[in-house]
């Protein structure tokens, strides 16, 4: 009997806790949800920050002040105007397609409205570490053994399969840690990484 009663009070206590949780959930709905491309979540914790959209720029329509953001297979249409702060790009039209962007938004008349659009800054590579197309072509002509190099393609494997530089090895960036042991055996060999360019 005693056991039963304590079980009941435990249920009651749980109910109180759950009501509390429900109230919290309602409060959380007032803040805008965040959404991001899976690849963004590898480096950032956007899912824990409210009111952020992070993904790849798919298109900009200047005539209607809208842009389309791709997050995995999902598309989000975002509105902007002269008050929207644009960082790291001169104009919306000049942001390269597929560029990673982070958008701080609010809901305005049922639309997603961007307060700030931040274009991801390019990663600087020191000059002495850059390989030119001529250098790569010369090595490729020799082949990995004679040229003593490993050419590594950092793009996802489906893009590698569709077209890659001869003699390259597929090493998708997000599988780097998993593949490093197998692919980077020779400590002395020159490693050259490439992908789809600056964007």
């Amino acid at each position, binding site marked *: 009997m005693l056991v039963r009663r304590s079980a009941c009070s435990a249920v009651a206590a749980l109910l109180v806790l759950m009501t509390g949780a429900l109230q919290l959930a309602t409060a959380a709905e007032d803040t805008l949800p965040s959404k991001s491309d899976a690849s963004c979540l590898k480096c950032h914790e956007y899912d824990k920050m409210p009111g952020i959209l992070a993904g790849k720029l798919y298109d*900009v329509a200047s005539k209607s002040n*809208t842009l389309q953001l791709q997050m995995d297979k999902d598309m989000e249409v975002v509105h902007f105007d002269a008050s929207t702060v644009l960082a790291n790009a001169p104009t919306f039209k000049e942001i390269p397609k597929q560029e990673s962007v982070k958008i701080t938004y609010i809901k305005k008349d049922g639309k997603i409205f961007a307060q700030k659009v931040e274009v991801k800054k390019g990663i*600087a590579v020191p000059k002495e570490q850059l390989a030119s197309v001529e250098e790569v072509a010369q090595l490729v002509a020799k082949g990995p053994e004679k040229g003593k190099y490993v050419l590594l393609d*950092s793009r996802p494997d489906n893009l590698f*399969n569709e077209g890659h*530089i001869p003699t390259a090895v597929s090493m998708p*960036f997000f599988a780097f840690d998993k593949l490093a042991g197998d692919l980077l055996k020779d400590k002395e060999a020159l*490693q050259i990484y490439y*992908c789809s360019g600056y964007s």
Partner: protein
Amino acid sequence: MLSPLAARKAEKLGYKNVKVFHAGLPEWKKAGHTVISNIAAIENYDKNNISYILLDLRPKDLVEKGHIPKAVTVAGAGLDAMKDQFPKFMAAAIILYDVDGNTNTAQEAYKQISGWGYKQVSILAGGIQAWEKAGKQIASGPAATKIAYVRSFAPGEVDLVVFKELLVNPSKDVAIVDVRSKSEAAAGLLPNAVNIPLEELEQRLSDLPKDKTLYIHCSTGVRAEMAYNVLKKAGVNAKYVKAKVETEKDKYTIED
């Protein structure tokens, strides 16, 4: 953007001789160097119903002994004579194969087709030998001699031919929605089109024709695709056309 990050990771692992070909594949193609594709790309195209062109560059007797299904032979007419069979769509995937992926024929064909402006040309790694070695299906007898490429469409995208036909022969089940701005639409509308500018779309969902599939257009296809995605989210049945649309009073031009 991924390659510099990969290089940093490699350096952290203690590799000292790390470089980045930062300009990457676009620059490689621009410099006229060849690009290699894998059997897995063909498998992926087939699985996802993505159109591609597969050209067999070998002589006729070898083609008839065995070729990759869906391949088109260039042995008869030769590439030059086949130029007008190539699609208008310059980003079409075009895969070339020879015996082993290493012949001059393949290099030359690659250069020729790239020179016509095609952006997704590649030579199949290992040629038909790799295909056979992988245990893939081989077709024997004569191969197709004509390229029949029909572009595959993105989700929601409608064939321009279908869209044009709807303008001439309207359907009760279809409504044409013009998402250009008011000022652009003021110049003229397509037959039976309703103008709802993209920037107003979310507020005007109730103005949309009910019980009809909406066929959306703008002046290029960019805003139409955005409108399609807005409507898809709102649960509205819609499609869009990717085409240049110009209107003047009751005259119009639509092209790819």
